[in-house]
């Protein structure tokens, strides 16, 4: 399967030039770029590990790309995403978030059905990968 989180997951994987173009767009808007990685891609795992703090003072896409490439080198089989943070009043949130690296093999998720009273079912989504400990999943 292919996890389709992030703004551009239905497109072919972005090339480095395409990643850079999106970073340029975010920097033009005044947003801060952050790089994050994880080997627990559960849809409600909101806190991926930060590859350093968001780069608030960085206005040059080349610098952000350096961090993307360094993170990819350190974690070639992790999911890596680029986030853009907007501090404008009324937003103060992520404005763009897209995956820039993913493991070669994505085993996906098991849907666990816990049959409770009557016909109700409590659902749990569990990543096959997270059955192994962190760091040895992909």
């Amino acid at each position, binding site marked *: *399967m292919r*996890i*389709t*989180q992030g*703004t*551009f*997951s*239905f*497109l*072919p994987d972005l090339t480095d030039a*395409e990643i850079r*173009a*999106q970073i340029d*767009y975010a920097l033009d808007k005044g947003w801060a770029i952050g790089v994050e990685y994880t080997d627990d*891609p*559960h*849809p*409600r795992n*909101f806190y991926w590990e930060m590859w350093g703090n968001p780069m608030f003072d960085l206005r040059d896409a080349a610098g952000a790309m350096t961090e993307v490439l360094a993170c990819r080198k350190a974690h070639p089989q992790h999911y890596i995403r680029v*986030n*853009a943070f907007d501090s404008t*009043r*009324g*937003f*103060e*949130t*992520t*404005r*763009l*978030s*897209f995956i820039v690296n993913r493991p070669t093999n994505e085993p*996906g*998720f*098991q*849907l666990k059905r816990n049959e409770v009273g009557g*016909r*109700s*079912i*409590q*659902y749990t*989504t569990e990543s096959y990968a997270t059955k192994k400990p962190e760091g040895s999943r992909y």
Partner: protein
Amino acid sequence: MGSQAERYKSGVLPYAKMGYWEPDYVPKDTDVIALFRITPQDGVDPIEAAAAVAGESSTATWTVVWTDRLTACENYRAKAYRVDPVPGAVGQYFSYIAYDIDLFEEGSIANLTASIIGNVFGFKPLKALRLEDMRIPFAYLKTFQGPATGIVVERERLDKFGRPLLGATTKPKLGLSSKNYGRVVYEALKGGLDFVKDDENINSQPFMHWRDRYLYCMEAVNKAAAATGEVKGHYLNVTAATMEDMYERADFAKELGSCIVMIDLVIGYTAIQSMAKWARRNDMVLHLHRAGHGTYTRQKNHGVSFRVIAKWMRMAGADHIHAGTVVGKLEGDPNVIKGIYSVCRDSFTAKNPEQGVFFDQEWASLRKMMPVASGGIHAGQMHQLITYLGEDVVLQFGGGTIGHPQGIQAGATANRVALEVMIKARNEGRDIWNEGPQILADAAKWCSPLRAALDTWKDVTFNYQSTDTADFVPTATAS
């Protein structure tokens, strides 16, 4: 004062002379201001008509009453303070009326509207009356909860950023069994949509009772989430005959783990506010389908403009509201739709008469409401939709997903690919308005579902004149 004695003599006085016309009045920051489009009966003076509207929507009755003198009645009288002829519309007048904040109960849309659109809309001296816009004072807004979730928090919960959300309404809207209905939901979500939606008139009918629908839909939602690794949702319509029924349905939706429930505008303002409070208490996004609004928003000489309904619904606490598509099958002049979207999404909406927005509106930190574009739109219009509607919007392709020649999943994928490729191109600085068709054609080379969608719907447009246009610039649109 002798003149006071004269003023309160039993009998009938023109409203303008009763104190409801004050051309020198400067509205206070705490006043509610309403802008009405008035069409007086032949021979009725427009100023007297405006004063009558002010009177009938506040303290007046048809004759002088001495009991006014027991009150600080100057305070409670609404004041018409400005009357302008409507450009290009003979016999119609824009009239500005200010209401003191003490006329209204805090946090109650029912109370606000009972005055502003109460008796006055049936008043005989007027041929027609339309509430065009309102300025809600900061102080009054602060007494409302506002959207239960709001755009920012909804996106954070869904973990979806940087693009419009995608939805579809299950079709056929009536008749499917619960199990077949859930199939449509699963296919559309797995194919790439974020949300699927019950239609406005899906409640609990003989062919599909609500509990059955909820159970199958939640199976579909969870199965699609596991298949894609994304948060997915289905707007479970909880609209029912009584509040007790609606709470029962909403509680069951929550118990099953739904992230969103839905109501129809026809349940009424008080029920909407109750559900908004329920949604805030229960971490639920509240989708509002505007069923019924067309009966009073479409004709521009009579009724209530949808921009005012949108303001009230943001105050009442809806998170999603159907607000027009411009290019689809339902009413929508581009300027008027822009004005409505601003009302939903701004922190501060600036006066823009061309878009029907007659007042600056500071939103007092009420959360933002997500507009929903639904009705006769398809993947081939993606560049137009993004240009007109922006990013914080749910684009709903019902027929455009379910009617896809290769199936529902393919229909959903076509829409998602069209959306992502267009956002990517826009961010790269391309002129999507002009290059849009080419951008879609290029993506269709590697995405056969998109190719099929473009081939199927390439010539579908709904080019009719809008009936609801702003009259500030009389020649702004075709109508």
